[in-house]
């Protein structure tokens, strides 16, 4: 059983005025055979974390444990990990066969065994016909498979992927990520995958570690990350288009709880704020950020019979596939809403929108955390 544990790992580059905290006190465990995705924007520390696990960097503090072994100070070879780089890094002077065989040749395995394992691995990845070619003769997708083969052939304990699909075109990316997910499940190797593409993360991950500025924001299944973001960063980062975030206040007036903002004002069910905000805070009014996903804000031409309906003006419409996104100007905010595919309205015209209260989220405006 191979688990990967990070125990209060931090990595600091530079000193004094040029000090950069790339990873700040990260702690989590990747379970045996799990595919965990490190997701975050550029500069969030996800690649640094991966490099720390690989042994290409040494943590400033904390420990890394692979299996039952503390590997913090060990070289990559001693950790028995394999890594696929974003650039693939195929040795240009070696054939595909030699590239895949290289890790085995270093270990001085017998020639026959090397040949057999290389061919077997090439068979799995459907690149047997490429073994005599040079990297310069391969397409992007073929290079990626060769890089994968070079990692797999060693039977490592842990797979590490550093944005391996970034250089592929959109269509190939979609087909390849499904292939990668299936391959990982078939091989049953504990894997850590870095990407900035949330769609990719949501598709392939068993769990996602969301990072921002070196700090772990949330670790959860894709479904939980999407439906229960733990803070404003995760709420705004996950989802395409991103979640609407409305700054406002919750307060009690005449025994009722209201949400008040520059764009929308409405009454909230009492039970919605139970255990989230104290009565004292409600009396004074608590600054909160309301989050609601575009698909939970419905735009219509008429008010209809909705319990809660607001008015705004059409800012812009975007038809993506069969989803009709309507950006609505409400007060000083622009909200992303969804309308039926046939909904057509001109820019600047009046439009109504309604919330699905079941799917709204509240965050403390000061701590940024989920209420």
């Amino acid at each position, binding site marked *: 059983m191979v688990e990967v544990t990070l125990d209060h790992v931090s990595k600091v580059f530079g000193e004094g005025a040029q000090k950069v905290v790339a990873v700040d006190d990260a702690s989590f465990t990747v379970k045996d055979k799990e595919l965990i995705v490190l997701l975050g924007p550029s500069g969030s520390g996800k690649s640094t974390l991966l490099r720390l696990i*690989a*042994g*290409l960097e040494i943590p400033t503090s904390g420990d890394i444990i692979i299996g039952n072994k503390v590997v913090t100070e060990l*070289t*990559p*070879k001693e950790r028995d*990990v*394999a*890594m696929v*780089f*974003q*650039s*693939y*890094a*195929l*040795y*240009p*002077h070696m054939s595909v066969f030699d*590239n895949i065989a*290289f*890790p085995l040749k*270093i*270990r001085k395995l017998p020639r026959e065994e090397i040949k057999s394992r290389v061919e077997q691995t090439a068979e799995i990845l459907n690149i047997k016909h490429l073994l005599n070619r*040079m*990297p*310069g003769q391969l397409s*992007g997708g073929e*290079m*990626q498979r060769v890089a994968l083969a*070079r990692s797999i052939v*060693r039977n490592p304990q842990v797979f590490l992927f550093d944005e391996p699909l970034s*250089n592929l075109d959109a269509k190939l990316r979609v087909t390849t990520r499904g292939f990668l997910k299936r391959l990982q499940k078939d091989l049953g190797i504990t894997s850590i995958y870095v990407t900035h593409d949330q769609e990719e993360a949501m598709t392939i991950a068993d769990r996602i570690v969301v990072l921002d500025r070196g700090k772990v924001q949330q670790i959860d299944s894709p479904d939980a990350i999407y439906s229960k973001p733990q803070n404003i960063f995760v709420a705004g980062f996950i989802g395409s288009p991103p979640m609407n975030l409305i700054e406002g206040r919750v307060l009690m007036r005449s025994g009722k709880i209201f949400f008040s903002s520059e764009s929308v004002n409405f009454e909230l069910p009492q039970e919605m704020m139970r255990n989230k905000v104290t009565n004292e805070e409600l009396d004074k009014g608590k600054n909160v950020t309301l989050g609601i996903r575009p698909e939970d804000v419905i735009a219509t031409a008429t008010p209809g019979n909705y319990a809660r309906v607001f008015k705004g003006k059409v800012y812009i419409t975007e038809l993506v596939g069969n989803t009709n996104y309507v950006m609505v100007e409400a007060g000083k905010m622009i909200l992303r809403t969804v309308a039926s595919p046939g909904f057509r309205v001109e820019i600047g015209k009046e439009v109504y929108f309604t919330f699905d209260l079941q799917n709204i989220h509240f965050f403390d405006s000061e701590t940024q955390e989920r209420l």
Partner: protein
Amino acid sequence: MAKVKGRPKTGALFRIAAYSSTILSLVIYFFPFYLLVVISLHGNIFAQPPELVPANPDFSGYVAIFTNPAFFEWIMNSFIYTIGISLGTIIMSSFTGYAFSRLDFPGKTQLFWLVLGLMMIPAVASYIPLYVMLAKMKLLNTYWGIIIPPIASPYSAFLMKQSFDAIPKDYEEVAYIDGASRPTILFRVILPIAKPALITLALFQFVWNWNNFAWPLFVATSPRMWNLPLGIWNMVWSYTRDFWTLAAGGVVLMLVPFVMYLIGVEYFLRGIVVTGLKK
């Protein structure tokens, strides 16, 4: 190319100017070499009009050189010095360049600036202190004394450092993760990728060391240690008006590097394209 209204001839004028200056530069550069060959064949370039194609080519200058009893010794010494110094320089500068490019050690930046500073100092400035050192070590007039000091070449170290800098670190990192040691990475990954730079360095070193006159003159105190440039110079010095032998000597000296250049240019242009990376 579409014509720009009102300025139809700009592109053509530019091309004419470019081609003319290129041809003029080539003529200015290659004409002296042509004259050298003409003089070596007894062409009289001072006649009116100058004899640019020898009417009666005479190879006596070449015969004098090739039949000199010491010619074989000069050629052998030239090859020993050239190959010895070139090989030593390539090895030394590869390690030095790799250290500056990839390793972290105290004083690295300051040391690199020192190496760069040394490039500004003419090599001749170090001849006297080196002569004294070699004399004290009893290495004057020896092969080791002639070969070892030029191996420490700041320019070559700088060239290799720049070449290694241009090789993405991804190659090393993936090899490191796959279990390769640093020597394995250097010899099986980095140096093969840097082959075009190594070939270029070898070519430059060969030409420099083949034509090296001043350093062997300083250190080779006896004629049996002379290389070809020294030998031809000494030969001609005995014949004060024998310009054609001197010119023939120049042509002979230029032959081997010229052939090496032709081979090296073809290889360098073919090269190994760094295509294992997707950027």
